[in-house]
């Protein structure tokens, strides 16, 4: 459903790149109150953002493939996509690579996205849904449209993650004009994409948000998980401001679209 929107999104991205100057002007007109370029001396990240990559299918380079249901023809087939992994290589440990292969074989049932589970970080940032950043001075809220998942980045009073969780525990700091967020306390239930790339509960994600211009954030994340990978590795992609007139974050509470799948076998038989 979201997917057909990808080509439209790609068009918007192309436009944004080609006409970034005029888009900037538009953005200023559409959002009169996101005004200040800086907040308390720091860059202003407030607004509605979205990645325009095919990374939710596979964070690595991938060719096009058929979708899971031939009846849906081209609409739910997988388009080719350029990955977001630096060097395109994910340094799995040998046993983890075996697991990743298994995950891929089982992807149409095992991907946690299917069940509307919170996507975790970093995946939430490149799913084909927008998210809103509300940036205060001591806290920064990230509210994702998918499954109403969210997190609050603590810029002060940093804490150790109290318990493992789906969206992790985010402590933030500024390095110059770059917002750096360390996400720990991640559980081992989330995946990086629909192709079975995964991690353990030892994963630490260090995100870096840098404004390229008022409508583009350069996003980068370093993944460290010695239980799964032989070395740290990086992903990067731009986040684009949604510039449509009156672009608003909507709601995708997907639980009810998963209940037949999850509980269907427990429905009282009608006879």
């Amino acid at each position: 459903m979201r997917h057909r929107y990808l080509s439209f999104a790609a068009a918007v991205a192309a436009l944004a790149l080609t006409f970034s100057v005029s888009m900037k002007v538009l953005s200023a007109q559409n959002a009169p109150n996101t005004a200040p370029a800086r907040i308390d001396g720091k860059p202003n990240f407030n607004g509605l953002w979205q990645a325009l990559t095919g990374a939710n299918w596979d964070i690595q380079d991938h060719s096009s493939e058929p979708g899971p249901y031939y009846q849906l023809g081209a609409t739910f087939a997988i388009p080719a996509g350029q990955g977001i992994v630096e060097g395109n290589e994910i340094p799995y440990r040998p046993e983890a690579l075996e697991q990743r292969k298994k995950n891929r074989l089982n992807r149409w049932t095992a991907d946690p996205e299917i069940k509307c589970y919170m996507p975790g970080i970093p995946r939430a940032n490149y799913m084909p849904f927008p998210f809103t950043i509300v940036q205060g001075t001591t806290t920064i809220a990230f509210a994702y449209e998918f499954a109403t998942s969210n997190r609050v980045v603590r810029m002060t009073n940093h804490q150790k993650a109290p318990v493992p969780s789906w969206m992790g525990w985010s402590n933030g700091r500024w390095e110059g004009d770059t917002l750096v967020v360390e996400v720990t306390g991640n559980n081992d239930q989330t995946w990086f994409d629909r192709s079975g790339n995964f991690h353990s509960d030892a994963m630490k994600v260090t995100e870096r948000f840098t404004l390229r211009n008022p409508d583009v954030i350069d996003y980068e994340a370093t993944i460290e998980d010695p239980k799964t990978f032989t070395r740290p590795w990086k992903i990067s992609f731009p986040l684009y401001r949604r510039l449509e007139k009156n672009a608003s974050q909507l709601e995708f509470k997907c639980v009810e679209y998963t209940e037949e799948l999850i509980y269907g076998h427990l429905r009282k038989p009608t006879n």
Partner: protein
Amino acid sequence: MKHRFLITAMALLIALAAGSLLVAVPIAAQATTQGAAAAWTPPKTPWGDPDLQGIYTSDDYIGLGMNRAAQYGNRLYFTEEEIAAREKTIATTAQRDAVEFATPGGNVGTGPPGHWGERARRSPRQTSLIVEPENGQTPALTEEGRQRQAMYTRQGAGTARPEDSWEGYTSYIRCITRGIAGSVIPVIYGNGTEIVQGPGYVAILQEMVHEARIVRLDKSPHVGSNIKTYMGDSRGYWDGNTLVIETKNILGNKTGIGGNGGGTPFSEDAKFTERLTRTDKDTIQYTMRVEDPRTYTAPFTFTFPIRREPGYQNFEYACHEGNHGMMNQLSGARADERAAAEAARQNR
């Protein structure tokens, strides 16, 4: 984290709700809000908005009913004596909660102890959450509202056999949402609300079922009327030091003002106006006015304070991800049915 105990919690909640119907209380919310607000000036954010940021809980109003108990009539506040009596009960409860071991030979039971939920730290001053109308009672349902209530009751949340299917349970038990009103009204736990502000935005994050409402302050129009969502479409503005939020476009026939969003569901034409006023360093007076002429014969307003408490914070509430309660209720019901069928076969 506390989810595994949803069933017990629900039972308690139903008991509380039933109790509160008998114990309604009166309130003059608007007066409270405005009087207190006038007396205290909140700090400002660096971009000049009143600063409401922080993590707050409505725990002190746990168990206070929406409707006022008959004995209080039109009286809005408890007397000092009534408050003293309630404080005494709170102190006794706290003492009981602190007991680590059961008395040998005592009656222990198998349910979780009450203090696994949250407790009020101090007595409410109000006699009911509802302050408009003056009698502190939820206005009567319209004919359409009554029909919707009847359908809601049939569908689950009470009579028939909700365990026939997940569809028989409320949006809350299904871990979808508690809806816009249900997400703020105090219940037995998970009452935390975190407010994060940025220029042009306020984010309201509620722990239970992990809600994240984004309120735009840019005077932009609401989204098109064909776009309906559980939590609706919110726009806000500042009225002096008060954040006013107007919400429309909710999905009709989903959630209401009962515990955790249960009760008679609102219509899709419902409109909600919230007012948040910081009245001192640690307190925000929260007010919601509901206008839903298809469901209620008159508009009504409820209000209560939410407070910052030392050490209180929000945790991730992965409700759907951990919804073993739903799985267990459905599989338990099917097992019962199989056992009954087997017994019937053997008796033939």
